[in-house]
């Protein structure tokens, strides 16, 4: 059952050329509008079920915060409709609207009253909030004396004191020490199991991919992608370099992996192979064995200089390793249409067992974010197995060895 339904929602801000025109428009009924509308959000349409966790990503100004503010109820929508079942609790832009002169305790009580909690309940929740925020005696100091981390901890403790049906968190989890982050993630997970829907805005790919069920990518006020976290994050990543939705293509490959391609297309990668020492294409490699990554690129126009590179990511999208021709001290220059460039990256597969994907990039400069010819996420999937080396956990094969010295207490033994 949907707990949150947004139907073709849009939000426009009125923009007036100057103050006088607003005054004129207000004072003269029936006159033609003097403002023009700036659409911060358009045609936002999605439904969320109870217990689902949705990540919302997008560049600055894409409309993420506006969307969250509308769901939180602080801003009104302009077109479309919204249906919410249950109570919404929101942590918008790192705060809860605390009053700087009031003490932490006073602010907690105030927030409780604004949530409409009865006073006995606020009194009952107060010790738990104090305990969770863990800011000690500061609870009785004015909030203006708090560090941003402390404010955030208190805000999080207040917003989650009672399980809401929808919890909105805007960039909040990046603040605070790792101990607090763990504590808050634990609380979020518990809520989710009990049916709370979570809407999360974050730039942290790790956080998004580890807890979200679905990710929505906003670009210039519109939903440009909605899908599983990895696929949507690849799209977002491609968007960051392409800055234009039209240049991004996503195709589901035969092996189930979604390949995301973006870029101007001056050069396109036409073939990628992982080769064993005999030069045969492989889909799985033994830990520690030498392999070659072959990248064949087709040049489509005259290109003065080209950098070719690749990235290996694990199944969570975390980057294991990445390198390019520039960093390896090789320059590829003076290319013209029709040329074929074949790169052979040779390395030892020092990764732990598991599935990995390869992303490839060809660009004019070292960073693929500028002068991006083509960026291709998920271009190749391979697995690593480990039959020859001792079994280990993790993805970096550090090849540890072990020597043991044993000593009995009677014998001389230097304890550092």
């Amino acid at each position, binding site marked *: 059952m949907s707990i949150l339904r947004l139907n073709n929602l849009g939000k426009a*801000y*009125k923009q007036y050329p100057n*103050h006088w025109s*607003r*005054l004129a428009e207000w004072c003269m009924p029936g006159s033609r509008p003097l403002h023009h509308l700036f659409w911060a959000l358009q045609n936002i349409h999605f439904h969320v079920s109870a217990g689902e966790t949705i990540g919302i990503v997008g560049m600055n100004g894409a409309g993420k915060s506006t969307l969250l*503010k509308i769901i*939180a*109820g*602080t*801003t*009104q929508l302009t077109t479309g409709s919204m249906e919410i079942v249950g109570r*919404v609790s*929101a942590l*918008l*832009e790192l*705060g*809860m*609207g*605390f*009053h700087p*002169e*009031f003490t932490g305790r*006073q602010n907690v*009580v*105030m*927030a409780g*009253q*604004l949530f*409409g909690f*009865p*006073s006995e309940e606020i009194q009952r929740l107060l010790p738990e909030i104090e305990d969770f925020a863990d800011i000690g005696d500061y609870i009785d100091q004015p909030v203006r004396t708090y560090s941003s981390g402390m404010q955030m901890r208190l805000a999080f403790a207040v917003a989650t004191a009672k399980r809401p049906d929808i919890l909105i968190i805007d960039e909040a989890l990046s603040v605070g020490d790792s101990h607090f982050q763990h504590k808050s993630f634990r609380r979020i997970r518990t809520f989710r199991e009990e049916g709370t829907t979570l809407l999360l805005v974050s730039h942290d790919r790790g956080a998004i991919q580890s807890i979200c069920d679905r990710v929505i990518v906003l670009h210039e006020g519109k939903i440009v992608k909605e899908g599983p976290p990895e696929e949507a994050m690849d799209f977002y990543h491609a968007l960051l370099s392409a800055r234009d939705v039209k240049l991004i293509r996503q195709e589901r490959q035969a092996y189930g992996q979604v390949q995301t391609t973006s870029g101007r297309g001056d050069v396109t990668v036409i073939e990628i192979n992982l080769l064993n020492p005999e030069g045969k294409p492989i889909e799985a490699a033994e830990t520690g064995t030498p392999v070659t990554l072959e990248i064949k690129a087709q040049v489509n126009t005259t290109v003065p200089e080209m950098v070719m590179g690749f990235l290996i990511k694990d199944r969570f999208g975390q980057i294991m390793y990445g390198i390019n021709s520039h960093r390896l001290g090789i320059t590829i220059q003076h290319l013209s249409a029709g040329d074929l460039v074949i790169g052979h990256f040779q390395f030892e597969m020092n990764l732990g067992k598991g599935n990995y994907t390869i992303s490839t990039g060809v660009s004019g400069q070292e960073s693929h974010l500028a002068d991006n010819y083509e960026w291709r996420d998920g271009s190749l999937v391979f697995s690593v197995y480990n039959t020859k080396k001792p079994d280990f956990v993790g993805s970096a094969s550090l090849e540890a060895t072990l020597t043991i010295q044993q000593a009995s207490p009677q014998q001389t033994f230097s304890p550092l």
Partner: protein
Amino acid sequence: MLGMQLKAIWSYRGFIWGSLQRDFQTRYRKSVLGSLWAVLNPLATILIYTVIFSQLMKARLPGTNDTMAYSIYLCSGVLTWGFFAEIINRSQTVFIENANMIKKLNFPRICLPMIVVGNAAVSFAISFGLFICFLAVLGKFPGWVMMGLVVVLVIQVVFAMGFGIILGILNVFFRDIGQAVGIILQFWFWFTPIIYPISILPPSIQSLIRLNPMVSVISAYQSILVYGNWPDWLSLAPTTVIAALACLLAFHLYKKRSSEMVDEL
């Protein structure tokens, strides 16, 4: 429409009441004398007007021979005007000052001016309470006509609140309002017979100044407190109508502009 807003205010009464307490605590939290300042301030006002005008300047109210009468006249106007001006001054900035909260929490914003009114009422109750004590000590407590004072105060509060909310909303869009209000209130104070009796003005000016809706209100206080007479109810009728209209307009403007206001903050 009005009913819905009143209902919202009622359901957030816990927040309004809590805010009044917090504001009062916060104001005097770091001071040694604490809430004693709440008393010292109005006491100073009463003393200044009593000592300077009636004792040093020996000013007399026309038609009386009592030096204390003029100081009672002054206090009854100055204290009540202070209440009126405080509501307007604080209401016009209330949305701007609480922008942080308005942008981050979802609650009926109309509660904020209610807190302003409540806060002003608390300070007024303290200063006016002192003044009443002062009257009682002098043996000038007016008696039953004090009941009439409550009615006039209600009219004044409704007027100030309506006017204040209108200014508060407009101030979000046109920040000129904030600058203008300070000047307007000064002129308004002197165009109301608070420091001087209206009888010293030439008759033509008198009829002109009576167009000011605050004249009948302040005259009502003076008539109750100085002369112990019931106010002239009929003269209060236009002000009552204006006050009611101001309130209706305020709620209408709030309903129409509150969502735009959040975007503008």
